[in-house]
């Protein structure tokens, strides 16, 4: 039995705006699930519905086999870590972490032990007597996490917890969250708009757009087998290159190239012969010294690799070469596509053609 089940969740606000449509998800014990999508896609609303901070318009929420849809937030045994930490400024780190347990009137010696144990896990032992304003952003976020840990809840909810941190600290905290998840083996639902965070942290990603779930799968599945154009474009940095091509019987063609199709693709594209489809290819699956001319627009060196932004006729494309390249603007370079890693999408439905 899954630890958490979200069955047909819907959210319609009082002004009749529907934020979430028919959200279904099963989460296993100890699973790290990331809800990812652009701003306004409904991911935070979904999280808040799970926490009980938003009413569920329709659908059911089940944790450990119990339907908790109508149960108030305080009785759900769920810990919520907010983006802006939500620490009590007048309390010390120790008091912040102990606060929820004090409210529950737990034994003070046990509270003490739990706070110390959580502080040890999070590396906050030396900071316990400090007030939040004396801490760095990363430390504050760890306090917020510590406050959740001490409660030993059934489910952890994280709402963009790293958004307020600078890039370096965000990377460090991301690693710490991974280690923490391994240590605690906690069931976590984590919301982010950063697809890199989603790819690195998640056991399972739920990609959302406009209130709809676009795809649920492992990071590998979302990256290498996107269900539709939205997922293909949203997951991965740089995003997948999408080119309009025409399907012929044994090949695909565009004004600048014609690539023969292998048997697998011939089969999957047989219904599209004579039609236009969208071809998707990731930047790292484009290689140099092919036979397709690309006009360089920007040469972006990243150290270990170089991103080349260019134009195939009038279609913009990004290539990633694993070397320090030094092309100039308007240089013409020859590229090729790794056919093993090409995706096709229906132009009308935007769904992947497999």
């Amino acid at each position: 039995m899954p630890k958490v089940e979200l069955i047909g969740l819907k959210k319609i606000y009082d002004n009749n705006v529907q934020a979430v449509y028919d959200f279904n998800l099963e989460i296993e014990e100890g699973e790290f699930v990331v809800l990812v999508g652009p701003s306004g896609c409904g991911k935070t609303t979904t999280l808040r519905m799970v926490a009980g901070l938003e009413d569920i318009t329709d659908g059911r929420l089940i944790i450990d086999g119990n339907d908790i849809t109508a149960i108030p937030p305080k009785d759900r045994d769920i810990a919520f870590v907010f983006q802006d930490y939500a620490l009590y400024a007048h309390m010390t780190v120790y008091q912040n972490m102990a606060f929820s347990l004090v409210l529950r009137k737990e034994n003070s010696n046990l509270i003490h032990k739990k706070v110390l144990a959580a502080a040890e896990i999070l590396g906050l032992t030396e900071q316990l007597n400090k007030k939040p304003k004396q801490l760095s952003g990363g430390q504050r976020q760890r306090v917020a996490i510590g406050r959740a840990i001490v409660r030993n809840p059934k489910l952890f909810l994280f709402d963009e917890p790293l958004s307020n941190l600078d890039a370096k600290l965000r990377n460090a905290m991301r690693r710490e969250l991974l280690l923490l998840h391994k240590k605690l083996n906690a069931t976590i639902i984590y919301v982010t708009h950063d697809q890199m965070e989603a790819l690195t942290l998640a056991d399972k990603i739920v990609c959302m757009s406009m209130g709809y779930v676009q795809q649920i799968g492992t990071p590998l599945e979302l990256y290498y087998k996107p269900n539709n154009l939205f997922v293909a474009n949203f997951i991965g940095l740089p995003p997948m290159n999408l080119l309009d091509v025409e399907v012929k019987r044994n090949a695909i063609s565009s004004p600048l190239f014609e690539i023969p199709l292998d048997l697998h693709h011939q089969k999957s594209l047989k219904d599209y012969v004579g039609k236009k489809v969208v071809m998707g290819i990731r930047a790292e699956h484009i290689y140099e010294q092919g036979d397709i001319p690309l006009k360089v627009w920007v040469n972006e060196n990243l150290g270990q690799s170089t991103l080349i932004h260019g134009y195939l006729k009038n279609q913009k494309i990004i290539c990633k070469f694993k070397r320090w390249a030094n092309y100039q603007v308007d240089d013409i370079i020859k590229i090729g596509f790794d056919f093993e890693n090409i995706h096709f999408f229906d132009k009308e439905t935007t769904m992947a053609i497999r």
Partner: protein
Amino acid sequence: MPRDLVAIDKMKYKKDSLAFALCIFGLLANVLYFFTLYRNNDNHYYTYQMGISVIYNLLFMLIVFLSAEEVKAYQRRYSYVLFVLGVIQIFRIFYIPKQAYDAEIMTAQNYRTLSIYLIISSVFLILAAVRSFWNSTLLKRYIESNLKIPPTEEV
């Protein structure tokens, strides 16, 4: 260690609120003494002692308040300060109230009331001093011993 290790370890992160409260009660009792003494101004004789009394009361309140803040954070040396101030409160009975009473300027009722305020103040301050001394000594020894409380499995 005479007390539970966890209870002592908690002191590292929790203020000694009881010692602080005892100090404040001692201070409040002195405020009552102060008000009552000068409310009976008609009965009082105007000498330099009145000025000294006012200055002492102000200094007393300042020092007790500062000590209260310090004993809250287990600063042992302030328990000595509180103890001395507590003892002085007893001796103060024999200063203005007793002298005024002996000179038949103050009524017996006022003399008793003022003496009770000073005794109450003294008791609170000495209790605060004893508690603070005891707790701060325990905490100091605990920190020096480098003992660790057993971890919990519940997190």
